[in-house]
């Protein structure tokens, strides 16, 4: 087994996930994990597919594994927040998103999930702040997408 083999499997898994072929994607991530269980990316990718398919408890477990392997893995913290939100554990989701944002403050979805959870908890002012930050980042992303579309600069 080489790291190139694992990378190849992860790439294929992501390609399937992008085309919403989740069963195939999970099969590739499973294979990658059987070859390299210490790969946090693999746990994180599989967590993403589990979230998409409503398997939030399994997603949460995968996020925990990814984070155990790399405490500073921002994306795994965001997915953990997302899975916790879907499980209705809003307090825990806010904690996970806050950690994700400490590692990467420019993630629109982390701000948004945090806002949604704070809203659910009735912490309206804090929710408003989180939504505001999320919108700023989303608008920047949208403007960049528009520019790419009209060919101002390459993708």
């Amino acid at each position, binding site marked *: 087994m080489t790291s190139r083999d694992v990378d190849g499997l992860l790439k294929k898994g992501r390609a399937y996930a992008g085309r919403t072929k989740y069963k195939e994607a999970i099969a590739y991530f499973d294979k990658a994990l059987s070859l390299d269980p210490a790969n946090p990316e693999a746990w994180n990718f599989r967590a993403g597919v589990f979230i998409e398919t409503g398997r939030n408890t399994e997603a949460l477990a995968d996020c925990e594994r990814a984070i155990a392997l790399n405490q500073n893995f921002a994306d795994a913290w965001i997915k953990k927040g997302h899975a916790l939100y879907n499980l209705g554990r809003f307090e825990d989701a806010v904690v996970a998103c806050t950690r994700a944002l400490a590692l990467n403050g420019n993630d629109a979805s982390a701000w948004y999930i945090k806002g949604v959870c704070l809203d659910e908890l009735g912490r309206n002012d804090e929710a408003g702040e989180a939504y505001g930050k999320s919108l700023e980042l989303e608008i920047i*992303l949208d*403007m960049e997408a528009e520019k790419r579309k009209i060919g101002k600069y390459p993708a």
Partner: protein
Amino acid sequence: MKTEIPLSKPIRQFIRVTETLLDTEISLLRNPEADPNGTLVDVYTYNIDKNVILFPVHYMGLLKDFIIARHCIRLLIKGAAVKKSRYLVCSYTKNSMYKGIHQIYIDALKDEAKKERKLPVIKLIRMLNILYTSFNDDINELPWNPITNARIYHRMPSIRKTQLYYLMKESKKDMDEMKEYEDIIPRRYFVLNKSMFYARDQYLAKTLPADELMPVINIPQMKKFNHLEVKEMLTTRWTHTSWYQSKIFGDAMLEIMEKYLQKIDWNAEDTIDYFYDIYQSGVLMTNHFISYMSMKDWFVWESPQHLQEVQLKKAEYEHEALKKIFGDLIGESPGDFTSES
């Protein structure tokens, strides 16, 4: 609705209200190919079991929520029309398309007579088809835009800033539409097209109180709008463009818009009767626009399925209309000069 996509509380509640009132189901789908305005694929238009709202992948937060809110309102209007009576759209027939294309041709000839550089016949013919289709698309969309925006503004304060960004973007896009064809399109239609969008922007600028719609000033790209009210943002841009001559017509269209929309209580309770009343106001407003633009013979109110069927026959209808106007200049096969060629 069953989704793993995070949604803000008001949107989740609004989707639930929509589903309950219409006794239907809504699915949300992220799609890399989705139109930036999102797309509503609904049971009242297409032969499907449940409604789908598609939106771009990079819309992950409030932009997505805004798109969903807009499409839910459209869905409620369509569904209420179906439940209370019939849902109709502006469609066309072979004959109405001929009348529309013929009218554009007559107006184009008047404009061409004044020009030094004449438009090549092929370009002229293609313009006739494209312009007719463009007005059909716009008349089916535009009147519902101020309705959905006003409703969102009054009932969903948490997404007002998102709405502002969207309106600015949409207004700019609509203002620039057809710009490259300015010298080709008969002046009358260019001005009418711009006037519709001008009226919409003016209506929204008046309806949406500016103080709550201050731009998100932390965004560098939007800094130039800092300290500007939304009214100024929507109106000043028009006055600084060559479309300002659309003002006279646009003001008249604004009056039409206000006539029908001022009757709507934007804070009323969500019921089928309420959305049916909105549907009727939208239809009356559309009819008034059509009449104002002298396009009464161009379109017919028909089912969305009728519109889909005639869209499949569009090339054939265009060909027949052109044969009637230009005679032997037009070949026997559809497609030589049609808008799709």
